[in-house]
């Protein structure tokens, strides 16, 4: 490698690619060539920096300057000012919303200060398409160490003592899982990586695969050695083309260097990895369903036991772990279980990656130590609620999880606390909602998802969830009764107790947790026929306040159905029979004269 004076890192995550980061890279390279700087400055595409809200991100090393919302036409100024003259391009620096100061590097940004990056340690630092960069950051050193020690049980013990639990949602201790699979003798075993990230609003696994694919390959080889598997299989969503491409490149590079394939590092251990494509089915995140899908069938779950560790892929013992779980393994081996178990809470060690999204200022991918509070995540990392509105709830755990309210803001986040609060860790979606979100509609949104994704094998899930959806729909239309609320509760409990798989058993959670935390809001829908958040169309009406209306006519001109009438310079009126409640008048009025009842 040549000695570059500057490295310009351009984010190549999905969000930034969508806002022209490849063009930024091209313009930077063009300007570098024009100034004959190709031997001094290198432009690298990296994985996700996490700060998606302010993308595309460009970071310059060695001075750690962090530019946000860069456009391709900014390339000229970055090269001319920063690289040639050594002056930072101030207008592209991040503005701290609290102090209104511009921050020149990421270490001083609230978004990064509370974070601890273990699984994402390489995302945004290395070029994911170059194995040398991974190796330069201790990549494959853990595999070498494990193979040299040549004692699978010793490695399993390290993982067990570290306290690492499955990051896909279940939270099963990873070391124990490996130990069980290692003790089932068979002529062939499989190490499977579950990369079928199906939660709507979650993109942790995708970012790891796009930003640091080798860490997953290395960890799978380590796991394979521990349980005695010579084959690794990655089940990945076909909707993730960039992650697939980077994995393919990574596998090829690892094979070329002998880090995958026959007789790895002369240890006598052979291990190779193949990709399997999912085809869009949420239930395939459930391990038995995923295995059926890999075998070329409908992805329907089956009853456990037998567990995959006993009878998995092609009836052979198989071990399934999630992408983020794997990403923790190499670091634990290199830094020791004592270090890892010193982070986090009593029963939840290490960190968790969350996809922070929704009505929040800093949408992005974050990694925080277990035990951090929701308040720190939302207000310090997330920068608070968008538009200065009031916090209402945060939804964790995706469609199987629940909503947490203000009273849980200071609860330390870990597996057990979230479960006790009526939600769950899940895979790491964290959706923040403000006062304009109607919780009945949110529950309906998740049920709509579940109804679509239910595989149809067992009737509690197939039929029960459909009925739950219909009840919620009825309530949002203002036709619900108190009896419906009781029915909702009872039916939810029955589904929870009787459904076949994890998806079915957790599917009523969004209903139960919103009923528990927002009972008043449900009551308002069925008793007063009002939607307090003003989101349910059937339950709201728009009115003009004659005191504020100056008769400018903007509302009448913009009304798509001609429901607003009035004399010029006189207060207007809305004809409720014609109004379709689209809200256009409300958005267009500059005098706050339109209100929702």
């Amino acid at each position, binding site marked *: 490698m040549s000695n570059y004076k500057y490295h310009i890192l351009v984010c190549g*995550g*999905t*969000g930034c690619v*969508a*806002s022209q980061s490849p063009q930024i890279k091209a313009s930077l390279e063009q300007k570098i060539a024009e100034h004959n700087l190709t031997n001094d400055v290198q432009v690298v595409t990296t994985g996700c920096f996490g700060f*998606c*809200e*302010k*993308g595309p991100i460009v970071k310059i090393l060695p001075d750690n300057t962090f530019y946000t919302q860069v456009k391709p036409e900014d390339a000229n100024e970055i090269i001319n000012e920063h690289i040639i003259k050594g002056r930072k391009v101030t207008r592209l620096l991040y503005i701290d919303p609290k102090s209104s100061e511009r921050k020149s590097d990421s270490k001083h940004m609230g978004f990064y200060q509370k974070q601890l990056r273990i699984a994402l340690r390489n995302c945004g630092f290395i070029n994911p398409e170059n194995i040398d960069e991974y190796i330069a950051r201790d990549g494959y050193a853990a595999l070498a160490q494990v193979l040299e020690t040549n004692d699978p049980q010793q490695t399993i013990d390290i993982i067990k003592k570290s306290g690492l639990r499955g990051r896909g949602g279940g939270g099963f201790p990873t070391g124990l899982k490996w130990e069980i699979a290692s003790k089932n003798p068979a002529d062939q075993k499989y190490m499977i990586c579950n990369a079928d990230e*199906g*939660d*709507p*609003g*979650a*993109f942790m696994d*995708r*970012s790891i695969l796009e930003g640091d694919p080798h860490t997953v390959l290395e960890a799978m080889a380590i796991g394979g050695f521990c349980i005695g598997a010579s084959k690794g299989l990655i089940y990945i969503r*076909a*909707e*993730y083309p960039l992650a697939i491409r980077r994995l393919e490149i990574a596998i090829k590079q690892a094979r070329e260097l002998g880090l995958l394939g026959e007789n790895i590092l002369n240890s006598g251990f052979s291990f190779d990895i193949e990709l*399997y*494509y*999912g*085809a*869009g*089915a*949420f239930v395939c995140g459930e391990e038995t369903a995923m295995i059926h*899908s890999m*075998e*070329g*069938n*409908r*992805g329907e779950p089956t009853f456990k036991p037998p567990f995959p560790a006993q009878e998995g892929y092609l009836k052979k013992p198989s071990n399934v772990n999630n992408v983020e779980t794997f990403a923790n393994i190499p670091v634990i081996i290199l830094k020791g279980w004592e270090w890892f178990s010193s982070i986090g809470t009593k029963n939840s060690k290490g960190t968790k990656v969350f*996809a922070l*999204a*929704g*009505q929040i200022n800093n*949408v*992005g991918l974050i990694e925080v130590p277990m035990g951090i509070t929701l308040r720190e995540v939302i207000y310090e990392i997330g920068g608070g609620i968008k538009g200065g509105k009031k916090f209402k709830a945060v*939804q964790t755990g*995706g469609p199987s999880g629940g909503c947490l309210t203000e009273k849980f803001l200071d609860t330390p986040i870990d597996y057990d606390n979230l479960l006790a609060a009526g939600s769950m860790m899940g895979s790491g*979606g964290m*959706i923040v*909602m403000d006062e304009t*979100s109607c919780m009945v509609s*949110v529950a309906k*949104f998740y049920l709509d*998802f579940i109804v*679509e994704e239910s*595989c149809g094998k067992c009737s509690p899930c197939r039929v029960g969830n459909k009925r739950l959806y219909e009840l919620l729909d009825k309530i949002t239309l203002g036709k619900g009764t108190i009896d419906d609320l009781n029915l909702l509760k009872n039916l939810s409990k029955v589904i929870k107790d009787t459904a076949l798989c994890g998806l079915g058993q957790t599917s009523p959670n969004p209903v139960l947790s919103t009923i528990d935390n927002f009972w008043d809001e449900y009551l308002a829908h069925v008793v007063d026929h009002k939607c307090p958040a003003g989101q349910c169309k059937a339950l709201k009406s728009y009115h003009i306040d004659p005191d504020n209306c100056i008769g400018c006519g903007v509302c009448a001109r913009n009304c798509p159905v001609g429901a607003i009438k009035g004399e010029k310079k006189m207060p207007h009126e809305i004809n409720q029979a014609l109004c379709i409640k689209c809200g256009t008048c409300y958005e267009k009025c500059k005098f706050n004269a339109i209100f929702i009842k």
Partner: protein
Amino acid sequence: MSSIKIKIKKETKDKIVEICNSFNNSPKELINILHKTQDFLGYLPAEAQEVIAEQVKVPTAKVYGIVSFYSFFTMIPKGKHPISVCMGTACYVRGAEKVLDEFKHLLNIKVGETDSAGKFSLASLRCVGACGLAPVALIGGKVYGRLAPDDIKKILSEYDDCECQR
């Protein structure tokens, strides 16, 4: 099982047979075969499923069972410019539903349908992973972020000039 009445062109059939052969006609590879066939045809018409079933030696119902199970597979040809509106939770809470409604309204089609000219088709999908740009829609490979219902008309008009004959 004998082939009933296969209406697709011979070249198309040959290509599908070739795809099946490349996976050793193994039923275990059905999902990969369907992926490749859909890459080639753009969708999976009933006739293509019959060819695959015959080739892999499983009932057509089994192939159809898989096609209808997974949302990635479609039996309806997509429009020249397939539109996908992200309905992930992050987009939903930032107003994706209104954006989707506006597409439906302007194109006069439902989700999963293609307009009569074969120009646009409309789908909703779960999370593109660009939650920072929510709400997001994809038209072809192009990503449109931070959408409001008012933007949709203008965006669709970007595709006015193209000659869209299927």
